[in-house]
């Protein structure tokens, strides 16, 4: 699979990931990888943040939209 954004720009670059939001194939240049905190539990116990985070990959377009 090729990077969708690169293809739109006339380039032919292999995709290395898929955006978890829109499903677009993306290359290293057009992805954003963020660590997401994970909480477990809750009423009637305090919720606890897990020690490790979960990685999440989105394309730059979805990342920009979620930042707004």
């Amino acid at each position: 699979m090729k990077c969708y954004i690169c293809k739109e720009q006339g380039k032919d670059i292999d995709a290395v990931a898929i955006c978890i939001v829109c499903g677009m194939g993306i290359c290293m240049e057009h992805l954003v990888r963020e660590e997401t905190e994970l909480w477990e539990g809750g009423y009637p116990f305090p919720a606890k943040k897990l020690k490790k985070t979960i990685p999440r990959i989105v394309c730059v377009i979805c990342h920009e939209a979620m930042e707004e």
Partner: protein
Amino acid sequence: MTDLVRRSLAELVGTFILVFFGPGAAAITLMIASGAAKPNEFNIGIGALGGLGDWLAIGLAFAFAITAAIYAVGKISGCHINPAVTIALWATKRFPTNEVLPYILAQLVGAALGSLAFAAAAGMDAVTIGGLGATAPFPGISYGQAMLAEIIGTFLLMFVIMGIAVDSRAPQQFAGLIIGLTVGGIIITIGNISGSSLNPARTFGPYLGDFLLGGINLWSFFPIYVIGPIVGAVLAAFLYDYLAKE
């Protein structure tokens, strides 16, 4: 601020919400009904205007306040807002021993502040007429009968908490609503028997407020609202564990 202090503060706020809006509704009902003809001696004012509908209104005030508190601070402290719940979770080894006292202290302080704030907002009639929504056995109801009602009422409350919140198989996100409505339902039935406290802190707040502000002294009834809820909650927690084990 340590994690325990922060969570205790959340318990304080949750119990404040419960006592301001729950017993507050009972006090307001008595103030509205003040001077109205009471159909019989069993009726002290709650029910003078709308019969069991008065208790439904009070029960819903509790239900909404509890639901709001659970969704607001449930993730932070667990929102027990009830020493009987804290003790039952501790007794079944779900809550650490060193956190029991801070939680109960926070619940009692929150309840006291809730009652005092309600008196400040509603005026002295809330104390002299409404008794700040304090619980006591109703006319014709003995000490033992009131305690039995509190045991059974709190048993149901804790049994539902175990089923809808503690049990990992329970559906997610519904606990606040279901538990609030459960308390409302219990109040409709046993409100006119024992006052339907189900919670030592809920009774402590109005008792202390009445005592400090020159209202009625009801402390002789306090053991009903300490022993009854704790016995009912602990029984429910152990029974649920027995019934639900694989």
